[in-house]
């Protein structure tokens, strides 16, 4: 086992002529929960899309479990055990709740997660399993999106803005479920607008600012002032 599950080396990302990420370096160790914070447009989602293969890069810019995966397509990356819970849930409207979960298992990776275990984690989904996914509330849809990613039995799970647009009580219940999810040794990266939520579940934090890492460190060792400075790029 390499020391780092994931390492990014000088990762750049572009949308056409627009460069969204500039030389990102990151190392994520196995079993770590890492928070990625930053203002809107800092490149957080782009970072996750690059790791998941929705944006393709130079092969060596992303190394996962010792293999260069930067140039692989998203479906190939998924097969290697990286799952993304996308921003805005993005469930498949033509599929029922159960089908949305089952398609997560399409990669055929073995592991602890199954329909039964997802239903145990989010019991409401079992009651709603035959409904169209669009008929669920936002919070329930987020549970499906998380369950769908877990069904792939990933080694590394990427959460993009899982609390966005949800009621505080729902956010709390989803964050309460996180220890059960990552407790099994899964590595996680959490992109989150709500900084205190992100810091409360993570052991390390990276702050992005305009496509560059502006701060990184242990959750307990960075101060609020450090974060404010890294977040906004101005002296607090």
């Amino acid at each position, binding site marked *: 086992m390499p020391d780092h599950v994931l390492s990014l080396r000088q990762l750049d990302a572009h949308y056409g002529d627009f460069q969204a990420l500039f030389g990102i370096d990151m190392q994520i160790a196995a079993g770590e929960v890492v928070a990625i914070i930053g203002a809107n447009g800092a490149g957080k989602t782009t970072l996750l899309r690059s790791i*998941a*293969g*929705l944006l393709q890069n130079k092969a060596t810019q992303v190394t996962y479990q010792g293999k260069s995966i930067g140039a692989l*397509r*998203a*479906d*190939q990356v*998924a*097969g290697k055990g990286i*799952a*993304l819970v*996308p921003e805005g849930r*993005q469930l*498949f*409207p*033509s*599929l029922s709740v159960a*089908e949305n979960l*089952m*398609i*997560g298992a*399409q*990669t*055929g990776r073995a592991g602890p997660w199954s329909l039964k275990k997802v239903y145990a984690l989010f019991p409401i989904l079992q009651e709603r399993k035959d409904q*169209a996914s*669009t008929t669920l509330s936002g919070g329930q849809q987020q549970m499906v999106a998380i369950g*769908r990613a877990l069904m*792939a039995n990933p080694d590394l799970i990427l959460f993009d803005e899982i609390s966005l647009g949800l009621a505080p009580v729902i956010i709390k219940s989803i964050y309460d479920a996180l220890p059960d999810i990552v407790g099994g040794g899964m590595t996680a990266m959490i992109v989150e607008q709500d900084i205190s939520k992100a810091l409360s579940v993570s052991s390390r934090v990276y702050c992005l600012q305009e496509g560059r890492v502006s701060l990184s460190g242990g959750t307990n060792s960075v101060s609020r002032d450090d974060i404010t400075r890294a977040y906004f790029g101005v002296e607090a």
Partner: protein
Amino acid sequence: MDWIVAIVQGTLLGGLYALFAAGLSLIFGVMRLVNIAHGDLIVLAAYMGLSTTVMLGVHPFMALLIVMPAMAGIGYVLQRGILNRTLGDDILPPLLVTFGLSVILQNALLEAYSADPQKMNAGAIETASVPVGGLTLGVLPLLTFAIAIAVIAGLQFIFYRTSLGRAFRATSDNSDIAQLMGLNKAHVFGMAMALALAVTAIAGILLGVRTSFDPSVGGARLIFGFEAVIIGGLGNLWGTLAGGVILGVAQTIGAKVDPGWQLLAGHIAFLVVLAVRPHGLFPRVAH
């Protein structure tokens, strides 16, 4: 009585039109691709059936065992080799490329088989008939209709009960997110085209047994297929069968009034449906 016969014959003819249409409907549903070459692919399947029966001396229905996998293979390669490259935000490139494909197919068939009309010989079944409630119905039209129902039920099963169908629907919903699930879009689309052309093989063989065909008849089959899809409502396979039946009945009733009105009556029925229900009779509710 004559009118009842016309309606029943039209209904059975509708089965064949539904078979023409099922592949079109499937491809459009999965990848929003309008395949202008669909009619010519039906004719290609008919010629492949003809060659198989002539070379191996087998019954046209037995030829399906060769033509179906062959057409499916052609579909997969065609999709991955050419059509996938045309798909994108712009709907024009796939239209132009499949139009070009249509021209190429017609001319290649003309070169290979000449313009002489051909027909497949299915033997006694072509003229066999059975009495049904006072009417005498041809076995072949009845069989065609039964096959159409079986094919559509089969497609429906694949779409809603199998992991392949789940992959089709997910990729159609959001191909980026489907990639995240480990689904290779290029492969999923290839499989959809393979399935569509396997159905086309059935349609082509039944066409070639029922009537004579030549390399130029694909265009009309495409129109009938399109009309059946639109009448039934986009994305609804059972609706496509209903659309085929409505088209078939309109044609036979038109022909009953005046033999020259057969095609016109079908097109008028299509226009009326389009004017009254622009989304077809049974549209799948879009999300």
